[in-house]
């Protein structure tokens, strides 16, 4: 799978629910951020958790979020960075 995003791109974490294992924390779902790093592709953890081999490998990004976007209130000079797989990101226009 090819990376769809590059550093500087504005993205939004998909706000879907899952009943099974995934590595996208709830507190970031639906939140807007900016891609800061592209790490390459990794086995899909949602398959690895169920003894599958995790193909196709999925691009993984570091995404930076402003504190206020995540928690709905201001905190001076505070950001949160998290690593989010491509299928959990959509372009934020």
């Amino acid at each position, binding site marked *: 799978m090819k990376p769809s995003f590059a550093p500087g791109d504005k993205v939004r974490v998909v706000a879907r629910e899952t009943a099974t294992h995934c590595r996208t924390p709830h507190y970031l779902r639906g939140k807007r951020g900016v891609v800061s790093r592209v790490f390459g592709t990794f086995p899909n953890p949602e398959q690895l958790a169920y003894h599958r081999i995790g193909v196709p490998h999925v691009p*993984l990004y570091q995404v930076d979020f402003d504190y206020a976007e995540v928690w709905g209130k201001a905190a001076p000079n505070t950001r949160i960075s998290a690593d989010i797989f491509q299928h959990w990101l959509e372009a934020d226009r």
Partner: protein
Amino acid sequence: MPHDHSHHHHDHPHDHDVHAPINESHGARSDSILLERALRELLIEKGVFTPADVQRQIELTESRDPELGAKVVAHAWTDAAYKAWLLRDAKPAIETYLGIDLNLTPELVVVENSRERHHVICCTLCSCYPRAILGIPPAWYKSLEYRSRVVIEPRAVLAEFGTRLADDVEIRVVDSTADMRYMVLPMRPRYTENMSEAELVGVITRDSMIGVSVLAERPQ
């Protein structure tokens, strides 16, 4: 935050056998110990791995401690080209300098703390930690309290570790949510200017490489 004091579970089911051997497990619940033992014995019986494999893995895990991370930091402080490589592509830079094989361990990323930006590492989902170079994470790192509070009120949590940052220092909470394991390259205290690399290693603390503290500006 009390560092290592809030993690003693006192689970005493009323029907437990008072003559059963006491299992000194420092916070692990007795049912998780049983589960681990049952699973391990089954996997050994099925030939998935051998007791020697388990022993080897325990020894490897226990051989890793924060001194490895400290050596990497000290070298980065004294060699600008190495520091640039470490920040760009940490795993090969660490493997090459320490002469260890990290092929079977997760990816590593080193982030640099500065006067402008302070990183603090966490794993809100579980306990991801750069074990290959910092060893086994401290109990508080795995606590629900640290994992939840550090993303909600990082300045308050850092203050409880004795780390008070000016408002104009950006705090960057790094949540290790996937395959990358993060280590902080702390700021070098000025008094260490003339120290050798070996002396520098003794100055660098585990907590400064997690980012919950900064290194003191005076010898400790």
